[in-house]
């Protein structure tokens, strides 16, 4: 029983990370048809900037400021990417993806140049470093922080998408971008906003991944990105709720399978993906193929 609880908490914690990264990816892809390979770079940058701040300022203030710095770094980089790389290539969708591939290669290399190839240890404040007892299971406190922040993001995104005009534009744009512009709405602003928002979530994800692992390293972004792609495919492009559910499914399956046999976790995620693709005769947009 305690094992199940621990596995579930870990699975949900990992799911929270996947959701933070995948939520931006899915909105960017849904709205703009851009598969953003630079998203892993936003994650990595958020992690390193967050670590740098938290490393200078010990304790809880450092942690909070570190997370905020990670968010800001992710958002700023994403906004610059949209303005400087994606927007000039508007109307050349393949080139947009290729350019993000280039960024996805260059930025992590840049991170390595600045912060070195070795992992940097992230020391947690005392209250977060320990574990919490839950029905006899000792669950690391960080997992709760991850889950809480991911749920806050889910709630925030749902409110933003459901209750605001900007969210309305994004939801409509995911369905039919052309028609939104034909109604006199400039989607480019929505593109920029979605990129910045996705980058902010990715930056937070990077910083939290650092807390989760207790360190940051240059490959962090890329390794999270692959699972985030799986989550996007399973959850359906542009669907925040679908992404959240898929993130939970992937996180839990991975942890349970890993417990059954080491390294089975990642394989089972791929099997899950293949099974869903075989059973669901639909394309990524959720429409019947």
């Amino acid at each position, binding site marked *: 029983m305690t094992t199940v609880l621990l596995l579930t908490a870990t699975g949900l914690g990992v799911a929270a990370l996947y959701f933070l990264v995948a939520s931006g990816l899915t909105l960017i892809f849904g709205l703009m048809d851009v598969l953003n390979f630079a998203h892993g770079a936003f994650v990595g940058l958020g992690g390193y900037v967050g670590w740098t701040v938290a490393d200078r300022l010990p304790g809880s203030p450092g942690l909070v400021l570190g997370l905020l710095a990670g968010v800001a770094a992710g958002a700023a980089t994403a906004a610059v990417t949209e303005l400087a790389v994606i927007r000039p290539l508007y109307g050349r969708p393949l080139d947009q993806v290729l350019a993000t591939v280039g960024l996805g290669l260059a930025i992590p290399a840049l991170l390595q140049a600045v912060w070195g190839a070795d992992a940097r240890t992230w020391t947690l404040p005392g209250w977060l470093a320990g574990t919490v007892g839950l029905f006899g299971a000792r669950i690391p406190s960080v997992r709760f922080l991850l889950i809480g922040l991911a749920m806050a993001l889910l709630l925030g995104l749902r409110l933003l998408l459901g209750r605001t005009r900007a969210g309305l534009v994004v*939801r409509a744009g995911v369905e039919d971008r052309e028609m939104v512009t034909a109604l006199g709405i*400039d989607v480019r602003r929505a593109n920029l906003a979605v990129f910045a928002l996705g980058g902010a979530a990715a930056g937070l994800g990077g910083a939290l991944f650092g807390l989760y692992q207790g360190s940051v390293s240059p490959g962090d972004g890329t390794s999270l990105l692959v699972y985030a792609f799986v989550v996007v495919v399973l959850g359906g492009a542009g669907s925040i709720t679908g992404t959240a559910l898929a993130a939970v499914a992937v996180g839990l399956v991975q942890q349970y399978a890993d417990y059954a046999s080491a390294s089975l976790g990642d394989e089972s995620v791929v099997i899950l993906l293949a099974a869903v693709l075989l059973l669901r005769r639909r394309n990524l947009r959720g429409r019947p193929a």
Partner: protein
Amino acid sequence: MSAVEPVNTAANLLELEDVRVRLGGSAILHGVSFTVAAAGVTALLGRNGVGKTTTAKSVLGLYPATGSIRLDGRELIGLPTHAVARLGIGYVPEDRGVFAGLTVAENLRLAEPREQPKAGYPRVYELFPVLEARAAQPAGTLSGGEQQMLAIGRILLRRNRLLVVDEPTKGLSPKVAAEVARALKEVAETVPVLLIEQNLSVVRTLAGQAVVLDTGRVAHRGATRDLLADPARTNALLGVSTARADPVRADTARADARGGTA
């Protein structure tokens, strides 16, 4: 945004001159030139695949075109779609362009103008009461006719100088098609309309002028009445005979028009 300028009293509101469009390496429009009158309905006719929808989309800036497309003398080519729309061109696309996952109310809210966003609602609800009744329903759950009404009603929230309406009766039962046509007729009393339509009985009731396209070029221009009164010519241009396009037998003509040109 841009204040609506006084309506041009000159005869021509929209002028297309030598409009050419290439898509995926092949030319779709080979120099289309025609004008849309500042009042009433101008029909854009032709068999399937001759470039009617492409013409409509290039007016909206949805396809990259060369040549000239002027609204009241103002060049539209090169403008982004949202800027074209803000100049006062309302667009009802062929597949209606309704956001299926959004509610009816949300579909309408997206189309609200910046100034006086709510001012247009009474008229839209008067024209299409069903939209008010179904406000909270996802647009995807509406019937085809209701979706068409939403697509038209949505753009009427704004003050338009021209409506571009692509096949509004497509796929609708004769009764619903007649209802949509009646609404369009009422709309056209205040706003000029460029109408793409296969249903010749609808064309006959609504359109004063007709432009016929054939493989990316204008094949005929003139009064709709004269065109439809000449069965041989109609048949040559549109592939249907006017005798069977009689309003009474509109539905069969429709079926034939589709079957014959598909």
